[in-house]
């Protein structure tokens, strides 16, 4: 007896409501973008400069106490959050303190951290500073820039690769799915105000890679079936290809999710945001390779028969030359 996540020989119609799905995706993308514009991302110090201090103490974290201790220094915007994690013991109470970049300072000031550490040590005698990180505004500006470049480069490179290996309609479909995934991920981060730092960019690029992996497998099958069933309607070819690869799509997504969820639960709080982005990305990426990439491919149409340009009238939605 085998475990089967997808029943044998599915013949589901994925495009009966393709307009609806595309509409929902588009609406979600708009929502994500609006959230990004209005609420903005909760940038970590990598991207906006400043200092974060991670403290550990045997006493429970009293945020008010911490705030009073640091408040006297007049450092502007200071955020203090307690960090919870199932892997922490009873006597391990962790807090993250974030201090904004100080005005008029290009580089990192050591006095600032020393002052903060001294003030906190006075308030909480057994406090330890397990990590202290400062990024100057000069570097953080560049980091944003390189991050954006990295994501754009990745999408561009992929566009070209798929265009070369398939047809331009496939490339557009795949890239639409990528943009969809990246936007929705950014939307979730801005809506939930999860800290957005350099590692999240790595996660974004991995999502790009994963989503693409999925899309390419479906497209590969579409290409094969297009050659095999020359007279079949494009919609049916797409449906057939997705159904044929469905078992694999679900299998791989589930094994990846099994691995990621164990990392999410047990991997510690330091990379939880990073892993969350990837889990979200795997789910969205799997969805988008079917309901966005393939749906767009259906709308754009594919050039079917290269030897006889006019043959098979009616099966062609478009005959635009790439």
């Amino acid at each position, binding site marked *: 007896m085998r475990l089967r996540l997808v029943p044998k020989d599915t013949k589901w119609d994925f495009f009966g409501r393709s307009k609806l799905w595309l509409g929902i995706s588009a609406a979600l993308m708009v929502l994500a973008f609006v959230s990004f514009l209005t609420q903005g991302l909760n940038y970590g110090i990598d991207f906006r400069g400043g200092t974060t201090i991670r403290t550990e103490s045997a006493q429970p974290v009293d945020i008010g106490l911490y705030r009073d201790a640091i408040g006297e220094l007049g450092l502007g915007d200071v955020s203090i959050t307690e960090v919870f994690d199932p892997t922490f013991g009873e006597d391990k109470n962790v807090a993250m303190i974030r201090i904004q970049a100080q005005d008029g300072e290009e580089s990192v000031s*050591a006095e600032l951290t020393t002052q903060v550490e001294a003030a906190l040590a006075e308030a909480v005698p057994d406090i330890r500073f397990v990590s202290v990180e400062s990024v100057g505004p000069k570097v953080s500006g560049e980091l944003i820039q390189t991050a954006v470049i990295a994501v754009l480069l990745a999408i561009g490179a992929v566009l070209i690769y798929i265009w070369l290996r398939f047809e331009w309609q496939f490339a557009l479909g795949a890239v639409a799915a990528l943009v969809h995934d990246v936007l929705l991920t950014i939307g979730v981060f801005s809506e939930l105000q999860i800290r957005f730092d350099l590692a999240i960019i790595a996660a974004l690029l991995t999502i790009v890679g*994963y989503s693409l992996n999925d899309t390419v497998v479906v497209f590969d099958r579409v290409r094969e079936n297009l050659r095999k069933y020359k007279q079949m309607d494009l919609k049916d070819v797409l449906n057939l290809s997705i159904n044929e690869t469905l078992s694999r799509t679900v299998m791989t997504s589930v094994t990846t999710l099994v691995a*990621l969820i164990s990392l999410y639960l047990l991997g510690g709080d330091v*990379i939880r945001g990073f892993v969350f982005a990837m889990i979200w990305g795997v789910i969205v990426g799997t969805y988008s390779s079917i309901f966005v990439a393939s749906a767009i491919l259906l709308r754009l149409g594919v050039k079917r028969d290269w030897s006889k340009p006019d043959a098979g009238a009616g099966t062609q939605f478009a005959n635009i030359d790439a």
Partner: protein
Amino acid sequence: MLQIDTWKRVLIWLTVVVGLLLALPNAFYTRVETRNDAVKALEAGSSAPGLQEQAELWPTWLPSGLVNLGLDLRGGAHLLAEVKVEDVYETRIKAMWPEIRDMLREERATIGTIRLQKGAEDELRIRISQADQVERAASLVRGLARPVASLAAAGASDIDVSTDGTDVIVRLSEAEKVQTDDRTVRQALEIVRNRIDQVGTREPTIQRQGAKRILIQVPGIGSAAELKTIIGTTAQLTFQPVIGRTTDETTRPGPGEELLPSRDEKTADGEPIYYVLEQAPVVTGEDLVDAQPSFDQNGQPAVNFRFDASGARRFGDYTAENIGNPFAIVLDGEVISAPTIRDHIGGGSGIITGRFTLEESTNLAVLLRAGALPAGLEFLEERTIGPELGADSIEAGKIACIVAFIGVLIFMFLSYGMFGIFANIALIINVGLIFGLLSLIGATLTLPGIAGIVLTIGMAVDANVLVFERIREEIKAERGPARAIDLGYEKALSAIFDANITTFITAVILYAVGSGPVRGFAITLGMGIITSVFAALFVTRVIVVIWFERRRPKTLEV
């Protein structure tokens, strides 16, 4: 049909064995690390007791390369510094003044008298009394220009000379600035390396990043602030003749003179004291050959130093001629002390006293031995990660990896039965190979890197899943077992190929654009793709073929 040449099989298994052997040391991390350190110490000529036993903890015929742990896993300090290359322009251009002055003086008959004016810091502004001769003076100065020694700027000269009214202005040319910048950063890198070596921490990373930056990572050091006191100080030491002493900070020093504050000295009512000094130093830190922390006759911490031969001669001559006059010991623009010369100092050695703490005198000695930085450093980024946080991260990462691993193994077995077990063997080999590859290239494992491995565990089965699903389809199409397996591999190939190349592209871009932990992630992701394709296409296949040859099943259940 369903067969693989013997030489191919041997090659595949050989690769697996070599890869696993390379990964093996990581399973005994502390042990191998102790051994490697001991071997290094022995090679360096150390003969401390116990080293020999430590060196024998790991057999020499086994590979001993380890995956480096990144700072976020091991704990330590990370600094990104920018070299203030502009600092050097001023020194360079000011150093040209004597030569220009002497040359123009010889032409006094035509251009008249010359005077150095106050101008911007990176220029020389020379006023000529014969206003109509300013162009001639400029062309004379141009005659002193030297070609820039670089291929990229062939034909360019090192100075730009222009005129402004009756002034001749001399600046460094752009080509020369580029050259100077490069030299400055290289020198700074060398000095930083010297200083960190003097302190003697293990395996520091000191790299140039971009045109003007230096990245410094030192594992195990307590904090970035500590590191900064060692490398952040310029430590330009000079001995300069004293002209006067004042409490008035608005005193205007004459040409060729400068006003510098005293480091510790204050008047009775607490006002800071300033010294007027001759700008040209008698001797500098570059003339030192040694510096050691010590104590002065009052038992206060001090630094003993020794000059090289030429420095000793100049210092000796100067002290002989100026008995009774004070001279100043200046460190980074502050007068540390200004003793009066009581006697001719001929031995070439001396002592610097100031109000040092013991730590300050020790640090100063280190800095003087390692040499001065050619320009100041500006710190753009600093991170300190405590070793316990790193240890927690490793622990958590390890557990997560194992759970993920077991989860995927069970899942694969439930879904594909016997074939699932084959894929699982390949998956175990795959993770071993990742570590083998990482050790081989000496890559650094970071926390996101561990995430990359976990992600690879999840995604590595993808290639196998693709093949197995294909085989299922072929069985459904009534193909015989051998044919089904063969076609399964053949038809899945293009999807595997495309899917992995696209992911690999993103890994390459991440590596190229990213830095630090992100790069660590890109490396494990990229290596994971290579090993997982190898494991799925070759290892699983060999296993399947061997199984098939033994059993010759009539029907196939995948």
